[in-house]
C-alpha cells in the first residue's frame, strides 16, 4: 500500500528570542517556539483542536504588533521577530495566571502550580472577597463529573463535543462575561441532553473540571495516586475501527481510559464503549471508596482472583455487569 505524501511545504524563517528558526509554512508561533526550545505555557490550546486562543497565557511579543499575540494560533510569518520572554509578555502571562488562579480552582491543572511559581503570580492579592466561579459539582450521571468551579472557559469541551469532533452539540457556552458557563440548554442535566457519553470533552479538559467518575471518586477518597498507575495502550475490541485505548491501571484496576492524541484515525477520540465499557475486564462491582488506603493492594490481589472469571464471562457479551 502506498502512502500519499503531502506536497512539500515551503519553509519560513523567523527569529525567536534572537535565534533564527525555520518552520514549515502554516506552522504557528507556538510550533516555532517549540522548535527553538522555548517552553511556553498553554491552557486552552489543544493538540487535536483548532486554537481558540481564549486563555491568553501563551501570548508573546511580535515586533511591529501593537498588542501581544497568542502564540498558539498566530501563524509564523517570514521575518517575524518574536520575543517569548520580554517583560510585556511575562507581565501579561503572570496577570493571566493570577486572574485564572484567583477565579477558578487550578489544583487539578497540570503545570499550573509550576507556572504560578515561575512567573511569581500572586493570586491572593485580589483579596478574599474576589469573585470566583466556585459552585457545587455536577454529578448527574455515572460516567463523568462536571466540576465547573475548576472551569477556565477554554471552550475545548464545547469544540470537542460540537463541530470539531463529536458533532453532538450537547453543551455550549451560555451567558456572558464572568457569568458565562459551559451549559446544556436551560442547564438541563446531562441525562436529558444530547450527550452521548463519548467522554471526548473529558479527554481535552485542561483543568480537571471534567473528570471520569472513577477518578473523581478516588480523588475524593484520597486513593488516586498517579505515580502508582501504569498506562497500557491497546486496541479497543468493540468494533473494527481499531481505536487505541490507553488503560490507566492502579492496583490492578482500570481507573480510566484515555486515547493517544497522535492516533492518525481517532486523534484521541473514543465512543462510550471504548471510553467507559471496561467493567467486564475486571468484573468487580465498584465498591464504595471507603476502603482504608493501606489495604488497597491486598484488596486488589483478592479481586485479582476474579479476573479469570471475568475473562470467561466476557466471551458472552450479555454477561457483562
Amino acid at each position, binding site marked *: 500500500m502506498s502512502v500519499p505524501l503531502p506536497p512539500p511545504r515551503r519553509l519560513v524563517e523567523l527569529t525567536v528570542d534572537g535565534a533564527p528558526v525555520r518552520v514549515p509554512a502554516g506552522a504557528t508561533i507556538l510550533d516555532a517556539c517549540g522548535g527553538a526550545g522555548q517552553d511556553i505555557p498553554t491552557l486552552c490550546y489543544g493538540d487535536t483542536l483548532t486554537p481558540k486562543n481564549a486563555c491568553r*497565557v501563551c501570548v508573546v511579543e511580535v515586533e511591529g504588533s501593537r*498588542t501581544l499575540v497568542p502564540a498558539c494560533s498566530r501563524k509564523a510569518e517570514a521575518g517575524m521577530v518574536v520575543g517569548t520572554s520580554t517583560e510585556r509578555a511575562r*507581565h501579561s502571562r503572570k496577570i493571566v495566571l493570577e486572574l485564572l488562579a484567583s477565579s477558578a480552582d487550578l489544583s487539578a491543572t497540570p503545570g499550573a502550580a509550576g507556572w504560578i511559581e515561575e512567573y511569581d503570580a500572586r493570586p491572593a492579592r485580589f483579596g478574599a472577597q474576589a469573585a470566583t466561579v466556585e459552585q457545587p459539582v455536577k454529578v448527574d450521571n455515572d460516567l463523568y463529573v462536571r466540576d465547573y468551579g475548576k472551569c477556565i472557559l477554554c*471552550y475545548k469541551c464545547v469544540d470537542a463535543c460540537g463541530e470539531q469532533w463529536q458533532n453532538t452539540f450537547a453543551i455550549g457556552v451560555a451567558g456572558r462575561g464572568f457569568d458565562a458557563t459551559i451549559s446544556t440548554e436551560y442547564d438541563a442535566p446531562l441525562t436529558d441532553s444530547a450527550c452521548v457519553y463519548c467522554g471526548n470533552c473529558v479527554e481535552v479538559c485542561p483543568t480537571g473540571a471534567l473528570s471520569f467518575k472513577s477518578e473523581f471518586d478516588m480523588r475524593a477518597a484520597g486513593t488516586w495516586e498517579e505515580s502508582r498507575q501504569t498506562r497500557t495502550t491497546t486496541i479497543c475490541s468493540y468494533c473494527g475501527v481499531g481505536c487505541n485505548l490507553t488503560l490507566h491501571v492502579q492496583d490492578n484496576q482500570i481507573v480510566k481510559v484515555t486515547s493517544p492524541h497522535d492516533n492518525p484515525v481517532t486523534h484521541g477520540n473514543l465512543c462510550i464503549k471504548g471510553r467507559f465499557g471496561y467493567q467486564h475486564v475486571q468484573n468487580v462491582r465498584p465498591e464504595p471508596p471507603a476502603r482504608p488506603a493501606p489495604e488497597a493492594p491486598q484488596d486488589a490481589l483478592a479481586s485479582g482472583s476474579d479476573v479469570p472469571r471475568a475473562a470467561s464471562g466476557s466471551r458472552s457479551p450479555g454477561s457483562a455487569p
Partner: protein
Amino acid sequence: MDLRFRDAEPADEERAAVDAVLGPPPSSWHGGRRTDEDLRFASGGHAARERRDLLLPALHAVNDRVGWISEGALDYICRRLTVPPAEAYGVATFYSLLSLKPRPARVLHVCTDLACHARGAEDVRRHVQERLGPPGTSWVAAPCLGLCERAPAALTLEAGAPPRATVHAPAEPAPGAPGGDQVLVAREEPAAEEAVPQAGDPGLVLLRRVGVVDPASLDAYRATGGYAALRRAFELGPLGTIREIEESGLVGRGGAAFPAGRKWAAVAAQPVRPHHLVCNADESEPGTFKDRVLMEGDPYALVEAMTIAAYATGCAKGHLYIRAEYPRATARLRHAIATARARGLLGEDILGHGFAFDIEIRRGAGAYICGEETAIFNSIEGYRGEPRSKPPFPVEKGLFGKPTLVNNVETLVNVPAILLGGGAAYARTGTKGSTGTKLFCVSGAVARPGVYELPFGATLRELLTLAGGTPAGLRAVLLGGAAGAFVGPGDLDIPLTFEGTRAAGATLGSGVVLALDAGADLARILLRIAEFFRDESCGQCVPCRVGTVRQEEALHRLGRAPRAEDLTLLREVGQAMRDASICGLGQTAWNAVESAIDRLGAFPLSVTTPTSPEPS
C-alpha cells in the same frame, strides 16, 4: 449533527411568532402537522443548516411577542433551523434583551450610564425601585440607551403583537401608588432635530437635512440632492468612486480611524465572491447618539451611502445591524428601505444601471460587544457575538467567511458628500490628518446638549461654547465614551482631530464629549465605567473576562479608602488587558479609569499611606 430535543411544545402564540419570520414549517419533522408527505421527506446537510443566520431574528420574534423565550419556543426554533438547542441557548443567553425566564410583557429599562448619571439617573432609579421593587423582571438598570441629550432616559419595551416601545426622556416620575401601571411619564418623542441645536445651519454637511427635510419622504430627499451622489458614482465607476474616497482622506468614525478608501479598495480587490457590506449601526458606546440622530433625521442618506459603497466594492447584499434600543431609527430605516426598493433605488436593476443590491435590517439584542467589527459577523450569522481573532481581517474573511466591508453609519453618511463635491474638495475641510467634518455627542453638564457638527480642528472649547459655554466649575470632560479618556479643564484647547487628541493622550473615539461639573461624583462614575465593561465583556478571553471583574472590585475598594496596592493592581491588570485581550473592548476598557487617575487625580492617597508607585 444528530439533534436531540426535550419534549417541550411551543405555545400557539410562540409558534405563530416564529412562523411569521421563518414561514410555515415544511414538515412534521420541523414541528408542523403530520401528513403522508412526511414519510418521504428528507432534510439535512448544508441545506438544512444554511438558515442559521435567522436564529437571532427568530429569538427576537418570540421575545417580542411573549416577552421571554420558553423551552418549547427555543426547541421549535431549533427544529426549524437545525440548530442544536444547547447552542441556541448559548446564543439567547448572550443578549441582555432576551430573557429565558418568565417575565412580564412590559419591561422598563432605566439608563444608569454616564450621561444619565450626570443628569440625575439615580433619582429615577430610586423612584422606579420604590414603585416596582428591586430590579430583575419588571425593570432593569440598562446601559446607555443613546438618548443622552435628553438624559436621564428610560425605555419601556412591551411585548405583544405588535411589540411597543415607549421612550421616557427625560424620565419624569409619574404620580401614582406603588405597583401602579404608569411609573414614568409617557410623552410624545420629540422630532430628531431637537437633538441638533445647529439644525438648519447652511454650513452643515452630514446633518444638513436633519430638521429640514421630512425623513419619511423619498421625494423630499431627492428634491434636496438625494441620489445625485449615486448617479455620480455610476458615472465614475467602482474604481473611480473608490479613488474619490481615497482622495478625500475619509477615515472610519467608529473609533479606530482606519482609512475608509483603503478598506474599500481592499474589499473590491478580493477575487472571492460574494462580497458583503455591513453597516454598523450598533451604536452602544456610552454617551454616543449621533448615529441615532442621523438615522432618524435622514435615513435615506444612509440607504444611498450603503448603495454607493456596495456598488464600489461589488457587494450584492448589505446588512444594516442596528441596536434594538433604537426602535424609532429602526422603523424609519425600514420605511426608507421599503420605499427605496419600491422606487427601484434598491433591488435588481438600480436606476437602470444593471446593478443589483438590497439591504436587510438586523437588530441587535443588547450587547455592546456586537459593535466590534467581527463580533457583528458572528451575531448576524446566528452565533454568540464574540469577536474573532484577527488576522484574517474582515476585508479577507468577514461575514459568512467572505470579503466584507464594515463601516459605521457616520462614516457612510460622509460618502454622498464626498462624491458630490469631489474627494479633493472634501479633503480641504479639516486638517491634514483628519479631513471633513465630525459629529460630536455633547452631553452632561452643558446648557444645550446634542449632536454638533464641526470641521475637524475645532477645539474642545469652541465645541463647548456652541453647546452653551464652558460650564462653571468644569471638573472634567470625557472624550470618546467609556472606552475613551478624561481630560481636565486645562485641556480645553485640544484640537478635536484624531491626531490632536492622540497627541494629548486622549481619543476622539465615537465623538463623545461628556462634561462633568464639580458636583459629579468621579469615583462613582469610574465605578460605573468598570461595571459597564464587566457587564459587556463577552467572556471569551481571560484578561477581559476576569480583568474587568478585578478592576471593578479594586474600584469599589478605592471608593472606600484609596490604597496604593489597589492602584498598582489596577495598573497591572489594565496593562495585561490592553496587551493581551482579543478585541478592542478589553484593550480599551481601562483607558478612561487610567486617565482619571493620571490627569484628574482620582483616588488621591493620603499622606500617611505609601505613595503611588506611578508619578502623578
